[in-house]
């Protein structure tokens, strides 16, 4: 392994820019039997909250054309159990750990952040964009003032860890939200979370997802994600982690060109757990063959001249 993929993203040194996305990679450990997770640039773990959360009733997932709907409802073991039961084992693998977290209230966001700030993790990713829970989450992510407020309050208590804020695509103008995050002191932005979608079983006439609506992810949404990363890149100076429908190295280059300093692979981990590893190998090969000195040379280099 050469150094060509090494990527510094808001101060954190990743061995490569390919990170597995929150909610699609469990607590990392689930994949140990299937791939060598220490090959990954990093892992963003399943969204953690102050206390254990059981999530939504079943059914929670459904495949759609080139995508899937999910309404897991942020089931997680809570921050204490995560730190005690999951993190130590995960830390044995040489990869960066990003903790995706959320709260039902402003106070909860701040409290979880405070706890994580002192934990042995590399970066925090604040989820204000989960479409599948009633309280918190999306309510913070679809109102620019709330976005500013939660980012600002959380930033105040953080002494050690960089804060990345994960944005929702279910808004009229993502630039406004990106700007609110930057103004409030966020160190980075990740985009996008899932698009709100829905599917009905025409035989039972019931929604395929018990929560009625769910988040749409996968290759189907990639064009929307690329557009939103582009819009975000053109409105803020802080780095952006690009997410949405990535399944191969070409997709990663596409996101980099519109401004993603690193990327997350989500649904593709279900399609084949080998995909992020393949992407890393193929990306390294692409850079070498084309004499591109480092991944960062691609970032924001799309050519918009006529």
């Amino acid at each position, binding site marked *: 392994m050469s150094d060509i993929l090494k990527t510094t993203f808001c101060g954190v040194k990743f061995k490569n820019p390919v990170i597995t996305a929150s909610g699609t990679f*469990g607590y990392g450990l689930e994949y140990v039997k299937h791939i060598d997770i220490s090959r990954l640039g990093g892992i963003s773990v399943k969204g953690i909250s102050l206390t254990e959360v059981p999530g939504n009733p079943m*059914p929670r*997932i459904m*495949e759609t054309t080139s995508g899937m709907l999910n309404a897991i409802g942020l089931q997680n073991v809570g921050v204490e159990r995560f730190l005690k039961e999951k993190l130590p084992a995960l830390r044995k693998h040489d990869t960066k750990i990003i903790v995706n977290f959320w709260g039902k209230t402003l106070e909860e966001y701040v409290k979880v952040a405070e706890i994580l700030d002192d934990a042995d993790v590399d970066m925090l990713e604040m989820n204000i964009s989960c479409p599948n829970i009633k309280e918190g989450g999306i309510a913070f992510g679809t109102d620019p003032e709330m976005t500013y407020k939660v980012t600002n309050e959380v930033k105040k208590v953080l002494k050690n860890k960089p804060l990345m804020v994960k944005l929702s695509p279910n808004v009229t103008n993502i630039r406004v939200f990106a700007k609110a995050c930057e103004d409030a002191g966020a160190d980075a932005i990740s985009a996008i979370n899932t698009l709100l979608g829905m599917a009905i079983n025409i035989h039972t006439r019931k929604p395929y997802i018990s929560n009625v609506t769910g988040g749409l992810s996968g290759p189907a949404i990639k064009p929307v994600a690329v557009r939103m990363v582009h819009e975000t890149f053109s409105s803020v100076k802080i780095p952006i982690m690009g997410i949405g429908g990535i399944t191969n190295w070409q997709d990663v280059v596409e996101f980099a060109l519109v401004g993603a300093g690193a990327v997350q692979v989500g*649904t593709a981990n279900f399609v084949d757990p080998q995909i992020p590893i393949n992407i890393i190998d193929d990306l390294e090969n692409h850079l070498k063959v084309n004499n591109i000195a480092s991944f960062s040379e691609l970032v924001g280099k799309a050519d918009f001249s006529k």
Partner: protein
Amino acid sequence: MVGKIVRNQKLNDKYYLLEIKCEEFVREAKVGQFIMINTRHQDYTNDPLLRRPLGVANIEGDKFSLVYMIVGKGTRLLSECQKDTEISFSAPLGSTFTLLRKKRTALLAGGIGIAPVYWLAKTLKEAGCVVDLYYGGRTMDDVVLLEELKETTDHLVVTTDDGSAGIKGLVTDPFGENVNSYDQIYACGPKGMLRAVSEIAMGADVPVEVSLDERMACGLGACLGCIIYVKEGDETLQKRCCVEGPVFDGSKVVWDTVCK
């Protein structure tokens, strides 16, 4: 893992038997487990997107078999795969049936639920058990591989809803009459049937293991899309059908949350 298709045989208009050669897989697989299989050309099409869960139906030498029913696009694509092409799938996944020696066992299969039961029957038989198989389907097309099953069972009782094969009626009826004569019950099939079987078994105080189906995205415990609620003491716990299952203790499953 990657294997080579040895045969992809149409059993009838609905059912196929797919035999795949893969030494590595055969070494690891245990009875009751399943795989996530790619039904499409992975590199350049994304529809269908996810891999499909299928139970391991048999193992022989360096080959394993799947039995699948045509349901939607994934299984239809699978049915078009040609002999000798390579196909990719996960390592064997999930929990296993408890294997017993020299016991009296009843196996129940409903429709495509025959897949894992087929291998289970063979394994129990080899371990010296008495193996009675109660096998129900909607019509005669839903009960397949009867010749093979006769060889690996002591009694084979077939039922169909319309009486087009075997006894007309539900598979739980003839089973219910004999439940007391068994040391262990195993079942795979529609959830309503598994619930009924579990209730009959519990009534007779016979242990029962069921293999449950849930929609799955990852198949390896990461997405939390496949939750089954299980009682343990006073608590109701969330179990992942793909890791702690698909085989569960039928007496502990919270059936109201599973059957809707």
